[in-house]
């Protein structure tokens, strides 16, 4: 199989997955991504705050 075919085959496989997943589950997945991203930001903010705290 040539390189270009491999590239297109992977995209077709992704499309097949996309077509088989209900839209409701995709929405739920997007919400999960947002929640995790917010948690990452919160974690980063806590680390920054801890770094800024004066040492005794």
């Amino acid at each position, binding site marked *: 199989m040539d*390189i270009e075919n*491999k*590239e*297109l085959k*992977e*995209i*077709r*496989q*992704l*499309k*097949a*997955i*996309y077509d*088989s*997943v209900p839209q409701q*589950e*995709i929405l*739920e*997945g*997007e*919400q*999960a*991504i947002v*929640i*995790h*991203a917010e*948690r*990452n930001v919160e974690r980063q903010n806590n680390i920054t705050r801890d770094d800024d705290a004066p040492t005794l």
Partner: protein
Amino acid sequence: MDLNAYKIAFSEVLVIINNMHPENKKRIPKKFMDFLEESRYKDYNPSQEDINLENEKNLKKETRVILAIIYKKYFSNVDLDPYKKEEDKMNDIFSGKENVSISNVNKYSKFLYEVTNKLKRLISRVFGVSQGE
């Protein structure tokens, strides 16, 4: 919604993306890859043999969901059959649907032929030479 299940899915999706064709991998922004790395369950490191697109039926529900989102965001505008357009065009030409463009070529040739003849006549009139000479 099981958020921990998504953390496992992020680990699996990273394995899949890291083994993708370089051109496909390039379509996924580094920022999103960093997000997956930061959010994944760090103690779970599946192998490429277990997690790949070839046996997509065996992937977890959450992994399939994240892959579907990746397709929607970064791959849905990719032309999956770039050769089909050329093939269709060729079929149109030979089935007569592309007559318009062929007749345009003929019109252009005719126009060039007429202009050349007019120029020849003008030159022969100015220099007094007959067209046959």
